[in-house]
């Protein structure tokens, strides 16, 4: 479920990051404000815990699946702590292990560190109410909470994939980023999560909670639950914030539909249209380049395929050689200074 870079357009990953920023700010503030100082090392340990359990393989037949554990942490430590713990784990994974893209950190955190623990926790609280831990009612709540949390995260991932071919395509309709529309991405991802990963996450969360209740029941009393927030009070306390966020999330990609051409596809005509004129430098540059390499041609124009692809490959070789020369020289200069 870790989305790598390249699957999402920048126009999806940046709004997701923008949506996550206030969430992180509120979560950090909550932790900071809480009187109990011991929370900081505990929170770091929780993040490390979240990181490590994401590597655990849960056996399923001859194969195995991964757990996320966000709802488990939310049940023990509260959803805000879970949000921070899972976010930190995801950020470290993205930077150091390449699990999930660096640009996609916002989207991944939104799915797994925000939507997952909060929905999971809300459902757990709604179902279990004030019932005793591990009573039948709260057990169902724990299972349903983690099952739904996992599936919400998966659904969001599927939607983020699925809107790519809808929103970001070239003028001729060729999709630029993801290629599978919602009709493919949602069933493909949800089938697996509804039937396999979701129930497994539910079972694992439930039995982990059962173990904790058995061996260390006081953990649920002294825990990081910054707030004894029930799902309701979370909703009412942050109502405006949540509404604003929802609007932002839906508005951000919509605004981009209208932009037309993707960045980097601007021909000189489009620049002229956008700016009203062609910057002198661009015109010159483009002329100089065409003059320097007269045999160049643009693929798809009247020249033959062979000619144009030769041109393309040739410019590729020239470009690589230029880049490499520049890098090599500067590297020699930099490492020389070092020594």
């Amino acid at each position, binding site marked *: 479920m870790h989305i790598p870079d390249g699957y999402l357009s920048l126009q999806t990953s940046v709004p997701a990051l923008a949506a996550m920023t206030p969430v992180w700010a509120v979560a950090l503030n909550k932790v900071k404000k809480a009187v109990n100082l011991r929370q900081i090392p505990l929170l770091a340990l929780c993040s490390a815990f979240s990181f490590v359990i994401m590597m655990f393989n849960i056996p399923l*037949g001859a194969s195995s699946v991964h757990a996320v554990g966000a709802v488990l942490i939310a049940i023990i430590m509260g959803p805000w702590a879970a949000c921070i713990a899972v976010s930190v784990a995801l950020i470290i994974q993205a930077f150091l*292990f390449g699990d999930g893209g660096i640009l996609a950190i916002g989207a991944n955190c939104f799915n797994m560190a925000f939507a997952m623990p909060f929905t999971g926790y809300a459902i757990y609280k709604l179902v279990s109410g004030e019932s005793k831990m591990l009573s039948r009612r709260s057990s169902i709540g724990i299972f349903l909470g983690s099952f739904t949390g996992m599936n919400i995260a998966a659904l969001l991932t599927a939607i983020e994939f699925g809107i790519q071919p809808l929103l970001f395509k070239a003028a001729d309709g060729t999709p630029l980023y993801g290629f599978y529309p919602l009709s493919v991405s949602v069933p493909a991802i949800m089938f697996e999560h509804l039937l396999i990963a979701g129930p497994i996450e539910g079972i694992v969360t439930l039995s982990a909670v059962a173990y904790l209740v058995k061996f260390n029941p006081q953990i649920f009393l002294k825990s990081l639950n910054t707030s004894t927030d029930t799902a309701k009070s979370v909703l009412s306390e942050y109502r405006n914030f949540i509404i604003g966020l929802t609007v932002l999330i839906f508005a951000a990609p919509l605004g981009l539909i209208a932009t037309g051409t993707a960045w980097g596809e601007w021909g000189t005509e489009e620049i002229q249209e956008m700016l009203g004129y062609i910057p002198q430098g661009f015109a010159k540059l483009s002329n100089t380049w065409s003059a320097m390499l007269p045999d160049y041609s643009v693929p798809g124009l009247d020249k033959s395929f062979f000619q144009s692809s030769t041109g393309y490959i040739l410019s590729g070789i020239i470009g690589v050689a230029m880049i490499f020369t520049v890098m090599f020289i500067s590297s020699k200069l930099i490492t020389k200074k070092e020594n």
Partner: protein
Amino acid sequence: MNKPGTALHSSPIPMWLLQDSQQQNTVPVKQHLNTGFIRRTLAEVSRIIQNDFLTEKYARQSGLLQGIHPAVKLTTFMFYMVFSSLTQQLLTLVFLAVIGGAMGWLSGLRFGSMVKRVWLILPLITLILSFPAATNIFIKGQPLIIFYHQAGFDALLPDFPKSLYITSTGILMIVKMSLRIGVSISFGYVLAMTTPWTAITRSLRIFKLPRLAVMLLDMTYRFIFVLSKVAIEMFEARLLRTVGKISGRENRRFVSNGIASLFLKANHLGDEIFSAMICRGYTGEPVTSQPFKFSKNDILWLINHLLITLILLAGEFIYA
């Protein structure tokens, strides 16, 4: 005398003693003991520690990236990642892949393992998974490989596509997508291998990330090793003690209990570390050491990448 599952044998020597020992070893472990999930977990968790060793090794070498301010590195890499995400030019993506590779090579990273870690996993998987998308059903374009054309399925399946072929645009698009993924991973890999995590987090202070967040990222990284070690010991102990077939249910319970007991250990450690911090004068305000100083190398580096960016932009405009 006869073990269950072995055929009756007239000899007084048990069947299993007569068997070739080599033959015994070839019995697939996974099928009989069901320890695949333990091995996979051990492999994944040990990768964390392995990764840190590699970073330590590479970050100490003298090379191109080792001499650059982490914040400058981070900015440059983010810029290239954004560039790769925005460009639609195959050429630019190839250039960016070359830049990532060259950076690694000039910083003394092993080329083979870099190719393996960066290009042979996710980009390849993506290429294979996206292959159906290269057909005319998802991406229209010139036919390249035709599976069938104008076939009459109308009578049987009216909704079935009349033609199915791989389009040249489709191939181009999926190749670009895989390249984009590889480019992003290669910059991430090069950054992670040449920069200790604490240097990355300290440089994040320059970007005005709150101190608390930086402290959290730093501490978490250290605790990951502590908890990884606990997890490895837990799974190793289980692996060594696994005899006979264990049901999937029992194995799942083992993992859940493992998760819970890992949490208890983390919780206990949290208390102890907090006490240790208080003893050392912690007041609740995190103190971070001074960020690194910028040097002339960083200016050289920036000029270098300004030039490269110009080359990339030139390519963009020629083929725009």
